[in-house]
Structures are given as C-alpha cells and as structure tokens.
C-alpha cells in the first residue's frame, strides 16, 4: 500500500493537536513555546507533503517551509526574550501568575 498524501496530513494533524494541547494546558511559558514549535513543525510537514503530491513543478512548498523555519526561529528568539524579561521583573515564568498589569 503506497504512502499517500493523507498519511502525512493525518500525522501532521496529530502533531498539531499535541502542540495545541501543550499550549492550552501548560503553566510554564517555555513549555507553551515548545507547543508552538510542534505546531509549526506540523505545518511544515503539510507544506512539504503538498509540494511533493500536489504541486511538484515548482519547489514553492519547500521554500515556504524554509521561511517557516526562519520565522519559527525568530519567534522562539523573541518569545524567549519576553520570558527572560518576565522572569527578571516578575520573578516567575508561570503564565497564570503573570496577571498583574503595571499600575
């Protein structure tokens, strides 16, 4: 039985939902960022799978996957900078404790 497009889409859907679960249920901001990385990886799998099965003429799917990796790196950098700033000022990394706006 050949490995078809839907196989990859199912795997990436499951990975996406695992990332979604992490984002919804974790208290630690870094764990939430890891959930986001999982979701971005899931979208990358879709991009590359579509590039092979649906539009193999131009390599746009793979180039877009590279751009998504770049943006994931930038997002991780800025997100972790926010975590560091929150930790230094509010002494905590748990998102449910960061609920005090500066008055």
């Amino acid at each position, binding site marked *: 039985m050949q490995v078809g497009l839907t196989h990859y889409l199912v795997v990436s859907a499951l990975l996406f939902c695992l990332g979604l679960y992490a984002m919804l249920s974790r208290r630690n901001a870094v764990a939430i960022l890891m959930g986001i990385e999982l979701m971005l990886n899931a979208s990358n799998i879709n991009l590359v799978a579509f590039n092979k099965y649906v539009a193999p003429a131009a390599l746009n799917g793979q180039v877009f996957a590279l751009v998504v990796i770049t943006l994931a*790196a930038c997002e991780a950098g800025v997100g972790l900078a926010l975590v560091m700033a929150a930790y230094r000022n509010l002494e905590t990394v748990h998102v449910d404790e960061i609920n005090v706006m500066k008055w």
Partner: protein
Amino acid sequence: MLLLDWLYVGVFAVVGLGMAALPLAIVWALAPRAPYPQKRLTYESGVVPFGQAWAQFNVRYYLFGLVFVIFDVEVIYLYPWAIVFQRLGKFAFVEMLIFLVILLLGLAYAWRKGALEWA
C-alpha cells in the same frame, strides 16, 4: 537513491547508539556498585555542597544564544545561494549583497548595544 543515502544515516545513528551504549552495558555488568550517601554527594572540590545547584546568571548567555540563532538561520539562505549563484549571474550576487548587508547591520546593532559583551 536519496532514500538509500539516508537509510545509511539512520542505520549509522542506531548502530552508533548501540556501540556507544555497549561499554556502558559492560560497565553495568562488571563494575562494582556500592553507592553510600557520602560517595554520591555532588563534587564541590571536597567541600560539602550547600544550597541548590541553581545560581542566577545574568542574561548574557541568552543574548549569545539569541544572536547565534538569528545568524544560524541566515545560513539557510547562504547554502542554496552558494551552489547556484555561479549559474545565475550578477543579479543573484547583488541580491545576496543586500541580504548580507542587512544582516551585517544586525551584527553591528548587537555589537553596539552590548549584546556581544561578556562582562
């Protein structure tokens, strides 16, 4: 062909893990095990350890990691350009010149703002 190349990579990873774990297994089988509490204290050059291992470091480690990630990501675009630009002629070189100048600006900014200072 491509699958075969990376089949070798996968097999090398698995065999490598096995060969690296082999001596650990031998030691697990051969070596004596006599863990009494004093021996298992963390080593602090003879002094009895106090406090937790965590010490508050300032943020410079993170800044180096951040600048590294940004410039490591820039390498993604350098590799494909490197193997193609000979065929594409002058405008590919000019495009990469703009790309690299913008990123040298980023490095200059990080330098100026002290993100690369260790002190």
